[in-house]
């Protein structure tokens, strides 16, 4: 923050609105099976919710919500979730990323639906983490 005179209205509104944007982003991710949406769109909205507080409240206060060092970690964890889902399917006897072989105890078609949900969560986390990380890197450099 370059100026000392923070606007309390901007700060308060961004703080109140950010969780609701996150909630809608989670809806977009988890409802991607039935409506337009999915990991990329929901992850972008999650990143927007985090960046809103970063823009409005400044660097120090926004560290309480999402620390600077978490971005790359969350992004890597998202890619790992995606890869691990495919790898478990490969360990259980199918091809790589063949979700029908995931050990969930359901019939193959329903298991594929669950596998799609897992990798959408992975995509969402990766997009969110990387976007926030790029923003932080640009701010710091």
């Amino acid at each position, binding site marked *: 923050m370059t100026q000392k005179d923070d606007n309390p209205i901007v700060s308060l509104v961004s703080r109140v609105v950010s969780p609701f944007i996150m909630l809608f982003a989670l809806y977009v991710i988890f409802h*991607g*099976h*039935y*409506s*337009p949406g*999915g990991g990329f769109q929901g992850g972008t909205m999650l990143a927007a919710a985090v960046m809103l507080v970063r823009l409005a409240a400044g660097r120090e206060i926004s560290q309480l919500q999402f620390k*600077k*060092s978490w*971005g*790359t970690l969350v*992004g*890597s964890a*998202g*890619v790992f979730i*995606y*890869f691990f889902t*495919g790898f478990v399917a490969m360990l259980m006897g199918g091809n*790589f*990323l063949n*979700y029908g072989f995931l050990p969930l105890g359901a019939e193959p*078609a*329903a298991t*594929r*639906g669950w*596998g*799609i949900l897992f*990798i*959408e969560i*992975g*995509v969402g986390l*990766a*997009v969110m*983490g*990387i976007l926030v*990380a*790029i923003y932080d*890197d*640009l701010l*710091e*450099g």
Partner: protein
Amino acid sequence: MKIVNYLILAVFAGLMIVASAGMPNRGDANAQMNLEKSPVGSPVAAYYYIQNSKTDAHTDNMVTVILADWRGYDTLGEETVILTAGLICFLLLRKRRSSDDSKG
């Protein structure tokens, strides 16, 4: 010079409108992209997607099934591209940690 710019823009806009008028209606069952066979007799991919997305993956959204299931390897590559871009930004832009700000 400005007149020429606007003229070119108008010509391209008219071209787009004419081209969009010639496209098939949304959900047209007789459009070529929704038919079972292409003009040379090979199977069309979109027909398979429309027929089997619900039964293969219990998911209503066809786009999600194509993106995440049938083209899952491609999406893994896209995500790796995003991760690579983030890591490159991390390596290029992050300042080297000096002794006075160890919080990092």
